């Protein structure tokens, strides 16, 4: 929560774009403070920091990364449903490059050399990462081409890859779950430099995206395309390229998220990697205050906080003993509350109340 000084108008704080995500996060953390014993405990073990808060940060990495990319797409007035499938494709490409022999027909002879060897990788790890990210960007470009040059509704255009993508990922790995034994690849999702390594990736990506959109004109262009692509076109913005860029960037983010999740579970499981994460990512962006459907103004920080809200809810529910499978019901309740928070009717009510409070403060 922001500190409220009498000079700050409460109404303005309520209307701030970060108000809802920050409020949601505070509510959840407050809930943990009251109901979950030792939730805020941090522990230093072997130079690593442990604790529920660290867990939240670490587990939220894929969602937050996806949400950063999704923010730009939603800001252009679109949506990308295929990020989960792209995660699976990127993960499968990475796994097959690290261990192509495991899907070969001649499994028997080679498998002993591969299994359990923490240094074995068919392609060098940087090449693995580069190629899987390239595959993800290619998927993003495909979406972008359909949306910008094909003039297909974004939801429909990305639905195609959402349906076909998992099939493609299964084909890449021959529908075999490849186990990764390579330690340096596993470091992406499991490593620690005091804090989880994936956290540094998230921060780097966020800073990169922030600089790209707020220190260059790209952010402005994205917003203008979202508000009205026709007006942008007439004012000389190449709206097709902007859209293409947004989808390609979203694909890139999905690739990064895919690498993080594959590396943290050390398995390529094309059926499970990124399943339903597109929904989490969209929800994170919506919580963060970027408007789905209409596009326009976006807030990267809001989306990041939105991602943290989702993960914090999930972790707190586990902490109070809600079954993992029932968590979707909790998420649904969360979506409904966010919908209510953002709905015009409720907002009008809040604004009236806050305005009255603000006037009282000003009078005092």
């Amino acid at each position: 929560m922001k500190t409220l000084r009498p000079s700050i108008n409460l109404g303005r704080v309520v209307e701030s774009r970060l108000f809802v995500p920050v409020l949601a996060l505070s509510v959840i953390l407050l809930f943990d403070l009251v109901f979950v014993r030792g939730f805020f405990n941090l522990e230093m073990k072997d130079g690593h920091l442990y604790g529920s808060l660290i867990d939240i940060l670490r587990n939220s990495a894929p969602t937050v990364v996806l949400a950063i990319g999704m923010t730009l797409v939603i800001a252009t007035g679109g949506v990308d449903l295929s990020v989960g499938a792209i995660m699976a494709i990127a993960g499968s490409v990475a796994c097959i490059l690290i261990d192509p022999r495991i899907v070969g027909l001649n499994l028997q002879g080679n498998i002993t050399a591969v299994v359990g060897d923490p240094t074995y990788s068919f392609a060098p790890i940087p090449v693995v990462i580069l190629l899987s990210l390239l595959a993800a960007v290619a998927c993003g470009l495909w979406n972008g081409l359909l949306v910008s040059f094909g003039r297909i509704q974004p939801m429909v255009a990305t639905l195609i890859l959402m349906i076909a993508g998992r099939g493609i990922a299964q084909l890449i790995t021959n529908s075999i779950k490849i186990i990764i034994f390579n330690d340096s690849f596993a470091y992406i999702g499991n490593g620690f430099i005091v804090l989880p390594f994936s956290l540094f990736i998230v921060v780097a990506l966020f800073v990169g995206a922030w600089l790209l959109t707020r220190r260059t004109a790209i952010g402005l262009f994205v917003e203008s395309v979202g508000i009205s692509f026709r007006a942008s076109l007439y004012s000389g913005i190449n709206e097709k390229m902007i859209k293409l860029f947004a989808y390609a960037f979203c694909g890139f983010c999905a690739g990064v998220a895919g690498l993080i999740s594959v590396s943290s579970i050390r398995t390529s499981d094309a059926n499970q990697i990124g399943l339903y994460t597109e929904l989490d990512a969209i929800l994170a962006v919506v919580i963060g205050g970027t408007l789905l459907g209409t596009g326009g103004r976006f807030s990267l920080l809001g989306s990041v906080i939105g991602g943290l809200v989702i993960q914090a809810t999930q972790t707190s529910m586990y902490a109070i003993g809600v079954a993992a499978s029932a968590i979707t019901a909790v998420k649904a309740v969360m979506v409904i509350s966010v919908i209510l928070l953002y709905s015009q009717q409720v907002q009008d009510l809040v604004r009236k109340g806050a305005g009255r409070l603000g006037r009282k403060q000003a009078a005092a």
Partner: protein
Amino acid sequence: METLSLRLANKRKFLPVGATVTLFALAFLAGTLLFPAMRDGQSFFNLFITTPFLLILVVGEGLVIISGGIDLSVSGLVALTTVASAALLRDGWDPWVVIGLMLAMGLVFGAVIGLFITYLKVQPFIATLAGMWLARGLCYIISDSEIRIYNPLYKLLAGTRILIPGLADPTTKKGDYVTILVVVALVVLAVGMYIAHYTRFGRTIYAMGGNNGQNEQSARLMGLRVNRAKVQVYMLSGFCSALAGIAYSIYVGSGHGTHATGMELTTIAAVVIGGMALTGGEGYLLGGLFGVLITALIQSLIQYNGQLSSWWTSIVIGALMLVFIGVQGVLATLNARQLTARRLGGAGGGSTAAGLRRRPWRDRRVLVGAAVVVAVLVSMQVVGARNAAPGPGNSGTGPACAIKPFRQDHAAELMKAGAVIAYERNGGSGCVDELSAIYADGRIVADNGTQTVEKKASPADVQALLGSINDLGWFTDNMYSTSETQCGQCFTYYTAVSYAGQVKTVKAVDGGTAVPANYWLVTAKLSAILPTFGPGPQ
């Protein structure tokens, strides 16, 4: 009748539906030419028998999509219905009461979603997404594990065959048949078509959809009760989902939260392939029937082919969606141009419209779609050919190799002699069927059905191997068999191990779909010690 003739006059509207029907007919014809097994009439009716719930969902989803919305909650509601009805039946409720309750639940569920969308102005995408999550979550709150359904009425509904007159012999009860569920689904489709084309409600939803939601405003200005129709259409979709859930629980005979995962995507795909525009306002529910049949046909063609993995189904469906969306886009452009031309009354606009009408296939979207379909078909051919070629170092039986059943009697005999059994089998082109007996004294005898090889290891090695496998928790009292149905490319790496002292201790693994923890470690440990076969006599 006048309206019908008017509709027929505007033939372009029927292009997507016509394309769907033609595509289905061509694909079915090609299938019968390629695979003699498909020439049996029953193979046609099987397309219906395997998909009644999908058809019911398509009716509900189709109406929502025509109204300009989308419903992602259908699969969640199907799963919730299966779990809730299975739980109630387990507690001894009357099946008819259960069915009635479920349908009422679907209506209420849809109504709540519809109210959210209509009065809180929530995007349909988000609201129905929340609905899906809620429904799936509720499934697990009711029951974490699968509940089997033993109700006699459900069994009766699942098992009764309705023979096709003329194609079956009523006295011997043999011949072509469909199930009761198919009839129910077709009735639902007929009712849906009646609602869509011959009622005020149907005309309202057609008027609402399309043109990026601007038509909704026009419909409102025309005095149509848009809000009411919107809530009603989601209620209808909820009702259809619940009905599909009942059909699904009858079809699979159980209820579980993972049932129908991803079915909302299949449903939307079938709607799109059926020629309904995702922007709303256009298309016919009858097309949805063919959309469902095409998805089922793709699946069975890939099964008959035998060399392609079932994952090609989703890729082909994706490519087909692209084509149909392309066709829709072209039609939308044509209509818009024609409208502009008419409004302007000028020759310029008219000539472009006429020019476009002559060659709609020249549109970029259609070209891309067609190119993708060709690319997919070619790569299917290539992959199929590669899989058909005998793999290196294998016995070369090629694709004809069927997954052999576990030689249980042989294994039991060896176990009686004090051996620990390791078994690996692999369908497709690999065609492995190796049963090895590992004895405590270090003797290992392997047998692949045609050949026997023996190897002598040290007793200490055997002890270490079995100990470590045991440490990984790989000896159980359950007999697992996760081996899937006949599927040429679905490798079934199958490792079965039994430990001395326990009676029937076999663990089997399907390498393709459900690899348990440490599978590869166990496989590696085993393959390090087992003897290898030379080139076989075949």
